[in-house]
């Protein structure tokens, strides 16, 4: 493996993935506005471009050009640092996500930025750092709504991270590895039947993961940190223009990451639901089809995100904490016990 | 490996764990208004069962379990019995001292039981990792217990001081382990000695050992690492102080003994002077500090520093006698200290009504029983004959003198002379006539659990003072589990009779 090839391909991969991710973020926003609009029986954005498809661009330009307000009372270094942390963490975690089959060019993986043994842990690690963005923004704003939002979000993140991490243990147990590719490979044998959600009997874990992940990304019904009705805009009340946009982008980037992880861990990643029923279509198509499968599954999760937002009301704060600690956590632990018993005594599929 | 045997080697720990879990399970099920006393009794019976289990462990053959992580031998079982006993008495004391309505009684007893698990593991663990975790379990549970009296301002203060300095010490302890591991490539206490023999990095091991000793010196509150002790004792609830001034210390001493004698016998020449100095400073600073205290608990805190010093004297002796003396002293000190804190926590109550020495004026008039018990324990602390404290000091200094460390013994004895001053102040206070306004007049009657606790402590102190043979033999067997001590010099009393000239001729 030539070092220079490695460097070149890596830089290219990063550029492409970042571009796709940011575009996806933009269009997820649009998707959300559209879908929620339809759920609420209205049109959503439809003026800019055909079907409002250029709306994200317009929004971006607007946010970029707006005056960058810096309130006097804020604690400046952290105020500026916070959105950067949030966005950086959101974008970093995609680095270990494999989104296509294991195909190498000049000895370098094509369909992921980095394939490391402990990919799952890296994702957890990076997302767990992401909380600082929110916490610090709330604190440095020197505003009680912001602070409350930040406090809520840190508490919420810490509580739900536990359930989230535990829900993944079953998957790891089945694969016997923390490498995301291995995890997907385990699920790839019999198509949808061997996906963790079905074949791995991880359906409970799947729902725990989904719930906890919604809370992790501060999405409805767990969007307490930015609950408009009680906290104005929560932790980013004092933010405007590009800094606000960074928070916004990080939230959606996180959604995408979460969806990717859910896909990888529970829905068999890039593997086709039909497994080996589909014949091979030649090397090029064999490389492209998995990516399409992957994108489709991620899209499904994003849709569910928006769907849930349009459907469910928000929790009360104590309910949220109680739910996390008293319901999700015990179930997650029970799931681990059952899974390990099952893996220990019954032959896994 | 025999499966049932494996479990038996950690039987007392298991019993304490189960007790703690049971308490935690029962506590929320009980109605809010219900009296939490039964939980206390649960802890008492748990401790009793653990005590029995520890005694039972004497019948096990020496050996290790769980891949050589724990070892039951005469040494660890000796300390198992001691610690279980302390927990038993402390639970009895806490039973009535803590008001059942106002405090989280269930949590208190659960913490006591769980903390005991850590202490027991410290004594039987031969893997430093396990020792470290045991140390943390016992430390963290005592940090919490120290801050349990949240309504007062002093209790959280004592908890935070204890916590910060304790964690600081933990970091040193841990760094010491890291360096030892670096030098020897193992964290198994039994293997370190062999590792040391072949290491290229002896200086690293020496510094590691120094750090381990510093860390443990903090835990046993030996000077100059004692600064936390008075504050913590003053602020923490009295029934807890009785516990935390004895059981974790005994465990830490056990660890220190094991590490010094089993892991680092080759470095004797390094740790001996270090412990010598620590012992001398502890005795002196402890006693001088105690002299100017007005608060009884602070005074006892300084006295416990001094007692740690006496105990360390025996450490430096490098013989089975010394280790036996140290173990014996640990027992004697634990019993009398638990006893005196039983009196204090009953007289002062959970709210610490009686803080100053003056407040104890007339205790013997108000309640001859409490006053008498207090006098008895104070006399034992002074080291009056026919009490455990006397034999403890006696063995310590006898072994020191036998090892030729007359100066250390003299420092110790001068110190125990100084100590008389402040113990006597309490004693005379208890035996002077109370005024009509003395707070001591509100001291409640002794309750059954307290009577039981006092009976146990007094009788054990007396047994230690009148017929210490069995316990000393236990301590000696314990000492001889260390390979370097097992076949050392013949015991002190070669023959009860005229000594031979050869024996007399080896002079210092």
């Amino acid at each position, binding site marked *: 493996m030539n070092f220079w090839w490695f460097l070149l391909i890596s830089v290219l991969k990063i550029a492409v993935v970042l571009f796709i991710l940011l575009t996806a973020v933009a269009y997820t926003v649009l998707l959300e506005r559209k879908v929620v609009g339809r759920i609420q029986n209205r049109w959503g954005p439809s003026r800019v471009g055909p079907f409002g498809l250029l709306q994200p661009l317009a929004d971006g330009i607007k946010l970029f050009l707006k005056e960058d307000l810096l309130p006097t009372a804020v604690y400046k270094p952290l105020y500026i640092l916070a959105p950067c942390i949030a966005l950086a963490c959101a974008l970093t975690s995609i680095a270990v996500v494999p989104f296509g089959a294991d195909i190498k060019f000049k000895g370098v993986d094509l369909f992921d930025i980095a394939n490391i043994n402990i990919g799952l842990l890296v994702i957890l690690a990076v997302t767990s750092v992401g909380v600082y963005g929110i916490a610090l923004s709330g604190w440095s704003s020197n505003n009680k709504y912001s602070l409350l939002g930040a406090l809520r979000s840190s508490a919420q993140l810490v509580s739900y991270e536990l359930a989230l991490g535990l829900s993944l243990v079953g998957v790891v147990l089945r694969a016997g590895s923390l490498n995301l590719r291995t995890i997907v490979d385990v699920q790839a044998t019999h198509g949808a039947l061997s996906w963790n959600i079905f074949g791995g009997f991880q359906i409970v874990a799947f729902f725990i993961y989904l719930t906890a992940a919604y809370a992790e990304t501060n999405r409805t019904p767990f969007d307490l940190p930015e609950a408009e009705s009680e906290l104005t805009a929560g932790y980013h009340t004092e933010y405007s223009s590009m800094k606000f946009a960074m928070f916004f982008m990080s939230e959606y980037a996180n959604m995408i990451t979460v969806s990717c992880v859910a896909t990888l861990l529970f829905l068999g990643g890039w593997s086709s639901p039909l497994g080996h029923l589909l014949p091979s279509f030649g090397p090029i198509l064999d490389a492209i089809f998995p990516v399409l499968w992957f994108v489709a599954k991620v899209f499904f999760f994003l849709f569910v995100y928006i769907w849930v937002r349009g459907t469910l009301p928000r929790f009360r704060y104590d309910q949220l904490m109680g739910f996390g600690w008293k319901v999700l956590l015990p179930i997650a632990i029970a799931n681990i016990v059952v899974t390990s018993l099952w893996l220990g005594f019954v032959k896994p599929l | 490996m025999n499966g049932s045997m494996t479990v038996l080697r950690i039987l007392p720990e298991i019993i304490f764990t189960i007790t703690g879990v049971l308490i935690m399970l029962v506590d929320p099920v009980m109605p809010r208004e219900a009296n939490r006393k039964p939980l206390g009794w649960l802890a008492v019976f748990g401790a009793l069962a653990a005590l029995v289990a520890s005694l039972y462990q004497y019948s096990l053959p020496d050996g290790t379990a769980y891949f050589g992580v724990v070892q039951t031998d005469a040494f660890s079982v000796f300390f198992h019995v001691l610690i279980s006993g302390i927990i038993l008495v402390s639970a009895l004391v806490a039973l009535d001292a803590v008001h059942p309505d106002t405090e989280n009684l269930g949590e208190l007893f659960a913490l006591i039981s769980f903390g005991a698990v850590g202490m027991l593991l410290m004594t039987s663990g031969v893997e430093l*990792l396990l020792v*470290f*975790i045991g140390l*943390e379990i016992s430390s*963290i549970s005592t*940090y*919490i217990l120290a*801050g349990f009296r*949240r309504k*007062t*301002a*002093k*209790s*959280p*203060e*004592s*908890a*935070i*001081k204890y*916590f*910060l300095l304790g*964690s*600081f010490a*933990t*970091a040193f302890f*841990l*760094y010491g*382990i*890291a*360096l030892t*591991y*670096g030098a020897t*490539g*193992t*964290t198994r206490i039994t293997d370190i000695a062999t590792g040391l023999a072949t290491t290229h990095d002896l200086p690293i091991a020496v510094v590691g050992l120094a750090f381990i000793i510093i860390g443990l010196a903090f835990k046993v509150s030996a000077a100059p690492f004692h*600064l936390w002790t*008075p*504050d913590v004792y*003053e*602020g923490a609830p009295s029934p807890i102080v009785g516990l935390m001034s004895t059981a974790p210390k005994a465990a830490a001493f056990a660890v220190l003994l094991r590490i010094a004698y089993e892991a680092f016998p080759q470095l004797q020449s390094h740790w001996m002077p270090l412990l010598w100095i620590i012992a001398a400073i502890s005795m002196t600073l402890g006693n001088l500090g105690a002299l100017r205290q007005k608060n009884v608990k*602070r005074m006892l805190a300084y006295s416990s520093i001094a007692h740690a010093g006496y105990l360390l004297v025996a450490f430096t002796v490098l013989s089975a006698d010394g280790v036996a003396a140290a173990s014996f002293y640990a027992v004697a000190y634990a019993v009398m200290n638990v006893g005196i804190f039983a009196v204090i926590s009953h007289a002062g109550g959970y709210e610490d009504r009686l803080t100053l020495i003056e407040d104890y004026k007339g205790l013997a008039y108000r309640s001859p029983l409490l006053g008498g018990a207090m006098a008895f324990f104070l006399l034992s602390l002074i080291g009056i004959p026919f009490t455990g404290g006397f034999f403890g000091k006696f063995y310590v200094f006898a072994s020191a003198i036998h090892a030729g460390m007359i100066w250390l013994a003299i420092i110790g004895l001068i110190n125990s002379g100084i100590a008389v001053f402040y113990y006597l102040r309490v004693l005379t206070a208890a035996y002077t006539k109370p005024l009509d306004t003395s707070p001591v007049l509100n001291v409640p009657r002794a309750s059954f659990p307290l009577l039981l606790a006092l009976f146990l402590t007094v009788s054990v102190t007396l047994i230690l003072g009148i017929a210490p043979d069995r316990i000393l033999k236990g301590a000696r067997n314990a000492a001889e589990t260390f390979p370097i001590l097992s076949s050392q010099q013949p015991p002190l009393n070669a023959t009860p009779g005229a000594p031979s000239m050869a024996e007399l001729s080896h002079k210092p």
Partner: protein
Amino acid sequence: MVPIAYYLILSAILFSIGVGAFLIKRNIITIFMSIELMLNAVNLSFVAFANYWNQINHQFSGQIFVFFVMVVAAAEAAVGLAIIIALFRARKTLNVDQVDLMKL
């Protein structure tokens, strides 16, 4: 190739800074943080030594030690911060110099 001693010296630097911070800082939370710094320094030397011994006899219990230290640190943090909160409720201050109801 990096000498292992470099890592050890780095850990010594961090540990010493931790000790210094423990002694110098006045805010209880910061003091607690300096303890965490010390623990991290210890962890670094554990990992470095683990690498060394792994080369010699494939024995890497240093790494496992680090794992346990992290668990312990987490437990300690939970308890320590709870104590700090209790203290703040009782005393309305986080300065160690004002936490002085009891004098040494």
